[in-house]
């Protein structure tokens, strides 16, 4: 019995215990719930954050994974090198767990060993180009539809690049409003094309203008209208808009693993090379100040203003490389730098361009402003798109974009031009009293094949270019000068990249757009062009990133977008004999007061000032003929 009683008591105790337990549980639960409700809100918020920014949480786990991964990798050096598993962590993480690991994981060799999809899978973008599809229809004009409408105009300008726009603006300012301009592409501007994304505007081509020579009155007037010159000081010097003058730091060169200030190699350059470099710049200074027997400057922009003194002109007969050899400029550092300069301005190497052109690059810069010197440049996020847009704005009416002029015929009262509208698929016949061709010479030649009297001159050398705009959320880099406007890699085939956000005055913008420039000068232009057209988007991105990784190990995961533009005919190169030979004036001369010609090809140097000048020159000839 006592046992039985105890058992009952025990059972009762158990029940009571259970009851208390439940009550306790309940009380605990209630207390917990009260606190928990607030907590729940936080958690709910967190979940919202998680849901909306799932990527951030994934990042958290990546960071944790990285931490372990990095540790494991460091602890087991014999383990196979990780392949494509690297997850980009935050910059701080990379910094602290050792750039070494990240660098190793991201070295170009490993990139290649990875399946191409995995390391760059996050990069979005596309391959673009000047409207090649429409442009190449010019090769088969018979396949284009017959005209279904006609239109009359006094002046027809073919080509909406800087020369065409400049000519149109000039005519407009001189009372010629019955002007129609045809542009093959969707946008005018030619090599000054630009783009825009949520981070920044960016250039697709030409992206700066050196502070111009104050004798170039037309250009100064234009810059005043564009707001780039805000006024003139008491001495008559132009005051440049501070937001348009390239902000500091301007240039840096990646050399021997370090970013040095300026582009002329200095860091780790031996004394002998340095003295050659100094000698070269002393020579350039002489040329800069030199005047010919005719009293004109030896080198000027526009180049037609330069002296005709044979002492200087004869420099056009030999290549820049030969000239440098003759002058015993043998330093690899100097020669690399000069090659870089020729590629940058002419899309060709020192061996391809004339010595006159090579020297002109340096010796023609004579600008001066109240707040700027000849070494300063003007730049905008969208590059020279700013200038092209301002040119267009000053005479905006009468522009037909997406329109290909494909046949030109002379008539008793002028000319008839067939124009194909790419978006509508129709053709219009345009009757014009005068036609101004602001097209590159290989296009002009084809357009005028039915028009007699045009000199038979082989089209000049046009190098293909690749331009890539990369949207990045950070730029891992080694020691030295921070991100600058122009960033060049010593020894590289490219001419480096430009920071499109350089003129941005905002603080702490992590995301940037950098524009990478690469003239394809390894092969002859035709061959390089064909090869460029065959290269796929992914191949371009691979090559560009491999190049950037050398100076920025770990940049690949930081690239969010990469858009690539292939310029089949990037720019004219001043090959020996072209600038001061017989062809240039013949190509630029009007034909029977009906056909006029404007293009930087006619200068032989593809810079904004020349295209602007050529447009005005042709427009003046046209006005004189009227």
């Amino acid at each position, binding site marked *: 019995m006592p046992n039985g009683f105890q058992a009952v008591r025990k059972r009762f*105790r158990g029940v*009571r*215990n259970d009851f208390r*337990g439940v009550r*306790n*549980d309940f009380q*605990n*639960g209630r*207390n*917990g*719930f*009260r*606190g*928990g*409700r*607030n*907590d729940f809100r*936080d*958690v709910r*918020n*967190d*979940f919202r*954050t*998680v849901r909306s*920014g799932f990527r*951030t*949480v994934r*990042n*958290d786990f990546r*960071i*944790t994974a990285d*931490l372990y991964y990095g540790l494991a990798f460091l602890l087991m050096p014999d383990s196979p090198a990780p392949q494509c598993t690297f997850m980009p*962590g*935050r910059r*701080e*993480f990379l910094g*602290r767990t050792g750039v070494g690991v990240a660098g190793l994981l991201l070295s170009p060799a490993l990139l290649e060993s990875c399946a191409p999809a995995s390391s760059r899978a996050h990069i979005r973008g596309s391959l673009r180009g000047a409207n090649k599809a429409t442009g190449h229809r010019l090769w088969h004009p018979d396949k284009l539809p017959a005209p279904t409408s006609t239109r009359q105009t006094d002046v027809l300008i073919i080509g909406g690049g800087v020369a065409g726009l400049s000519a149109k603006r000039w005519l407009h300012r001189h009372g010629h409003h019955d002007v129609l301009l045809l542009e093959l592409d969707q946008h005018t501007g030619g090599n000054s094309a630009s783009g825009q994304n949520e981070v920044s505007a960016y250039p697709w081509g030409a992206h700066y203008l050196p502070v111009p020579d104050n004798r170039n009155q037309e250009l100064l007037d234009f810059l005043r209208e564009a707001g780039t010159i805000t006024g003139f000081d008491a001495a008559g010097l132009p005051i440049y808009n*501070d*937001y348009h*003058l*390239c*902000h*500091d*730091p*301007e240039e840096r060169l990646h050399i021997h693993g370090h970013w040095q200030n300026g582009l002329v190699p200095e860091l780790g350059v031996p004394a002998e090379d340095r003295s050659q470099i100094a000698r070269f710049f002393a020579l350039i200074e002489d040329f800069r100040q030199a005047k010919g027997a005719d009293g004109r400057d030896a080198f000027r922009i526009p180049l037609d203003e330069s002296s005709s003194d044979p002492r200087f002109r004869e420099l056009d007969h030999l290549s820049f490389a030969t000239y440098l050899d003759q002058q015993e400029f043998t330093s690899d550092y100097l020669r690399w730098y000069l090659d870089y300069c020729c590629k940058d301005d002419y899309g060709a190497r020192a061996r391809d361009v004339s010595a006159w052109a090579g020297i002109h690059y340096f010796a023609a810069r004579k600008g001066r402003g109240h*707040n*700027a010197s000849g070494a*300063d440049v003007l730049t905008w996020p969208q590059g020279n798109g700013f200038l092209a847009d301002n040119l267009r704005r000053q005479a905006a009416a009468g522009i037909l974009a997406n329109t290909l002029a494909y046949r030109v015929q002379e008539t008793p009262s002028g000319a008839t031009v067939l124009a194909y509208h790419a978006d509508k698929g129709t053709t219009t016949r345009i009757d014009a009293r005068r036609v101004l061709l602001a097209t590159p010479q290989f296009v002009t030649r084809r357009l005028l094949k039915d028009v007699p009297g045009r000199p038979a001159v082989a089209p000049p050398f046009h190098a293909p270019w690749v331009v890539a705009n990369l949207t990045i959320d950070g730029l891992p880099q080694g020691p030295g000068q*921070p991100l600058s406007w122009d960033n060049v890699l010593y020894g590289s085939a490219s001419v480096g990249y430009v920071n499109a956000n350089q003129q941005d*005055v*905002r*603080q*702490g913008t*992590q995301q940037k757009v950098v524009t990478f420039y690469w003239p394809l000068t390894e092969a002859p232009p035709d061959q390089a062009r064909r090869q460029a057209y065959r290269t796929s988007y992914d191949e371009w991105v691979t090559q560009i990133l491999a190049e950037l990784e050398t100076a920025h190990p770990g940049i690949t995961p930081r690239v969010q977008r990469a858009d690539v533009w292939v310029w089949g005919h990037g720019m004219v190169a001043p090959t020996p004999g072209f600038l001061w030979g017989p062809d240039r004036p013949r190509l630029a001369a009007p034909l029977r007061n009906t056909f006029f010609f404007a293009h930087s090809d006619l200068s032989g140097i593809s810079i904004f000032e020349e295209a602007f000048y050529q447009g005005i020159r042709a427009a003046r000839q046209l006005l004189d003929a009227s």
Partner: protein
Amino acid sequence: MGNALEEAPVRRPAAPAADHLPALLLGSVFVIATCGLIYELIAGTLASYLLGDSVTQFSTIIGAYLFSMGIGSWLSRYLGGPLLKWFIRLEILVGIVGGFSAPLLFVLFEYVTSFRLMLYTLVGLTGVLVGLEIPLLMRILENRYEFKDLVSRVFTFDYIGALLASLIFPLVLVPQLGLIRTSLFFGALNVVVAAVALYRFRETRTYRRRFSSGIVVALLALSVGFAYANRIMTYTETLAFQDQVIYAKSTLYQRIVLTKNDRELRLFLNGNLQFSSADEYRYHEALVHPAMQALPRARRVLVLGGGDGLAVRELLKYPQLRQIRLVDLDAGMTHLFQHNEMLLKLNQGALLNPKVQVINGDAYQWVRHDTTRYDLLVIDFPDPANYSIGKLYSTSFYRELDKLLAPGGLMVVQSTSPYVARQSFWCISHTLAAAGFHTIPYHTYVPSFGEWGYVLAGRNGHWRGDAGPLPQGLRYVTPATMREMLHFPPDMAEVPTDINQLNNQVLVRYFEDDWGPYTH
């Protein structure tokens, strides 16, 4: 023999060695209770340090912790089999999870975006494990005591442990050991409880060896953590600071770190001291009052930078002001100074004042588009240490500011140290002059900074140091102080400099030259 043990789950454990064993278990209740509360306090403190707003943090952490304990208690019913084995296992687990909670949270804080999610997950896990302990112990002790004695004893020890924890935590542990070591130390205590139970109860023999190795590994890990606590702190950057770091956060733009000692609170942005609560009044009084006392009819003020609200606090001493607009890039910064208790005390809730409008945006962008006219502009940016900030000290920027200035208005620019960075200071002054302003450079001594400089600028030279009355209760600025501030001894006297322009950022180079010898 394992079977024999496992089939007797509710029976009293076979033949305890002596009667002191229940006492041992009750002793462990005491330890467990202490540990349990310590983990809770650690989580609460850490959350307040790292996230600010201690009331909310403590409240939600305690709530989450207690609720998780409730879940643990409820789950305890599902634990069957040899309870002692469960208990030992549990203690080891609590030791590891609870012990590593503080170091883990410190490290995670730097890297994860949704820190709260991680925090509450860890708090919940610890809570569940701790919640299992007492019910489990009560079941183990069930047959050794009368129920009323059992409940009475267990809870007595539980609450005494809690009291002890709550007293030693703030008084001894945090000051002496720091959070990370405290956490690891109490983790080890939990594991020691497991070890004692393992060796004092005979029925643990069958699994003693297996559990021993677990205990050794756990203790070893905790001791290594304890020994390397400093390294962990270094890893979390906190040892870079002299004092205890009580808040650290990386925002989109900068890293904010608050440190504290007995005397003062210090704020660092990207490792650079912004103020010390002990003497910031000198800096901020000198920034605001020389200009404000000369503007008795001022209505509107624009403050650029200064997200700590300390300059605004000084401005609010002038009742004639109708609107103070503060533009600071970093929402993380202004949020901190609108919510953190200690900091609200420091800036007297300045950023919550109805006269004050806080805008999180880019200052340069703002001034280019603002069309309001202000009587005073207070420019309190970080020093021009890089090309990006250098743009905020350029002629172009100052010309934009000129457009915002009401007739007779003034602006004042914090201009780094005229003693250490003499060229930089005078460069700022000359740049303002080049932008068309009359400038009045002055300086003051702030003990935690050293000599510090400002430039007062206006369209005309009408400023007077004794123009208007100063607010009551200033601790530093008086008419006499203002006269002194205008005098530059020879070692800080004016030097010729270039003008800082966007296309030639000489100031950043001066600044590097000036501060270089001090930072290398």
